[in-house]
């Protein structure tokens, strides 16, 4: 089971889109720390007003990946993977529920479901293609890759969107995620360009050394579960051929064998 990387979207500190991220991660220089505000296309004014920040990050990178690949979302299955979802909305709802009498806003309630992001994606892209929304806590990126690769096997393409954002102050100590990070990877079963990276997977050995990032980038990898994608992104940036050891559930490892055709 393997797939090609046919499109990429990235949004995080110092990483403003897929192309810039590959350029930045291809060098050994450090990254800037500022984050571009997410941009979302395709929602009506009403839906855009209701669309929460976490969904904006996810839609931004997903739309980047589609644009990079020159594809549309009509028959494109999606895998949304987020460790902690929308804690900002949970916080607002829990505060409203702690009041007497408790009362919830209908919009905040429907935005509170883990798959609200997928709902906004379907509306923005006008697609009825299948979509799933996952969490495997800090191993959510690896779990999302595995699910997407299984879907590509049957559907010939799948878009993985992994994202998390920092929680509000009340939950910051209990759930430390300190920077926003979102990444989208369009996996396809074919590569007409002949240039795309190929990704195969296998389970690794428990306790096997995880692939880390050099220098200050290691702190960024650990600052957000979606940023566990950084070694993968750096491998794409350097067009390297190497195995990546990702942390997976229960101390296991998911090994991604990334290969690039020699120029």
């Amino acid at each position, binding site marked *: 089971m393997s797939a090609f990387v046919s499109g990429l979207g990235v949004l995080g500190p110092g990483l403003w889109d897929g192309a810039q991220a590959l350029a930045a991660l291809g060098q050994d220089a450090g990254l800037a720390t500022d984050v571009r505000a997410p941009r979302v296309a395709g929602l009506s004014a009403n839906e855009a007003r209701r669309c929460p920040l976490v969904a904006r990050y996810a839609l931004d990178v997903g739309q980047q990946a589609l644009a990079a690949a020159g594809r549309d979302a009509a028959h494109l299955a999606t895998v949304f993977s987020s460790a902690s979802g929308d804690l900002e909305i949970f916080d607002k709802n829990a505060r409203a529920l*702690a009041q007497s009498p408790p009362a919830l806003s209908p919009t905040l309630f429907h935005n509170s479901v883990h798959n*609200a992001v997928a709902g906004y994606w379907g509306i923005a892209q006008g697609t009825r293609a299948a979509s799933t929304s996952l*969490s495997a806590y800090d191993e959510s990126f690896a779990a999302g890759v595995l699910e997407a690769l299984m879907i590509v096997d049957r559907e010939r393409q799948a878009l993985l969107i992994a994202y998390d954002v920092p929680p509000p102050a009340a939950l910051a100590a209990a759930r430390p995620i300190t920077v926003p990070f979102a990444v989208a990877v369009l996996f396809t079963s074919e590569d007409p360009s002949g240039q795309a990276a190929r990704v195969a997977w296998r389970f690794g050995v428990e306790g096997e050394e995880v692939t880390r990032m050099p220098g200050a980038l290691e702190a960024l990898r650990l600052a957000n579960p979606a940023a566990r994608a950084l070694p993968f992104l750096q491998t794409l940036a350097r067009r390297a051929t190497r195995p990546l050891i990702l942390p*997976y559930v229960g101390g296991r490892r998911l090994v991604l064998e990334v290969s690039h055709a020699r120029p």
Partner: protein
Amino acid sequence: MSRGIPISGLTLVSALGRGWAAHARALRADASGLTPEPFADGVPTLVGRVAGLDAVTLPRSLARYDCRNNRLALLALESDGFAEAVARVVRRVGPEAVGLIVGTSTSGIAATEAAYRTQAFARTHTLPADYPYRETHNVFATADFARQVLGLQGPAVAVSTACSSSAKALAAGARWLRAGVCRAVVVGGVDSLCATTLYGFRALDLLARGPVRPFSAERCGIAIGEAGGFALLTTADLAAGEACLTLAGAGESADGYHMTAPHPEGLGAYEAMAAALAAAGRGQDEIDYIALHGTGTVYNDAAEDRAIARLGLTHVPAGSNKGALGHTLGAAGLCALATLGVAMREGFVPGTVGTRARDPALSVNLVLTARPARLRVALLNTFGFGGSNCSLVVERAS
């Protein structure tokens, strides 16, 4: 799907009771487990509450996981010999070859809702660093808990797509087995009562003030229930002789229409059902029963009815269990699977508790009260917020 996925263990804990026998009794008798639990301001509503959760004790090593959702999961794992069935498979193939997927909508967020109501929170406006967020509140908490209770070391994930969560977890389990990621998958659906869903559905004006009446002209909303159920999916060689059901096909789609309202023509629902039938290789004349999503809201039932009519399935006996055990949200798919399993094995077709007559404006062939029947092939529907649809074709194992 060329051949189905055997389901060799299946259990459910709901407002109707604990385990297979309790559900068989209640479903045959058209009983309802819903009870009145009015809101603090006196507004009436019914709730499908599971009895006995307060007395459930977690293993000491997993004490940090203690919350209503994980207690419900544990009660289910300890019902109908489910954990023992998993242990037998683990002994044969090893813990690395057994995966786990839990579908849940709200996980253990009730624990953090309660933490926000404490004096300590009112004072500090923050939860301490040692608050067990990961083990209770997080979407993955119940999957992580169940994985450790069962001693599994295979792949694990939580699927959270609102009311289609556990049906999609079943579809994912079938995908994992076909892909060879593991040789068996424990699939759960666990959702417990919390203030967010009770007050949230109230805010949307979707809660019934009296009985839930799916597909009736009198229908006026849902009652929220809680339930925990698990199914053991295996490769064919591991199931030998023990399978009760077969998961023959799954179909998934999105509405791409609105966050809470279904597509008025039920287009996404139609596509999910059509895809499930195609995956199972079953034609319209081969379906014996439809386990409707049938929530009992005006628009959901109408949209599902249109989708079924468009697919040419209005002749097929159909029913909803939402008036019996409530709408268990992320657990709804597992509830439908388990009640189908009971009906198929015990030889009856379940009724639609709460409904006295079908809405004449709707067209499905609604079964009102339970009656003896031999069901062989059934279609199961779940449709959730965000326009997330999943249909399954389930067959009685031969």
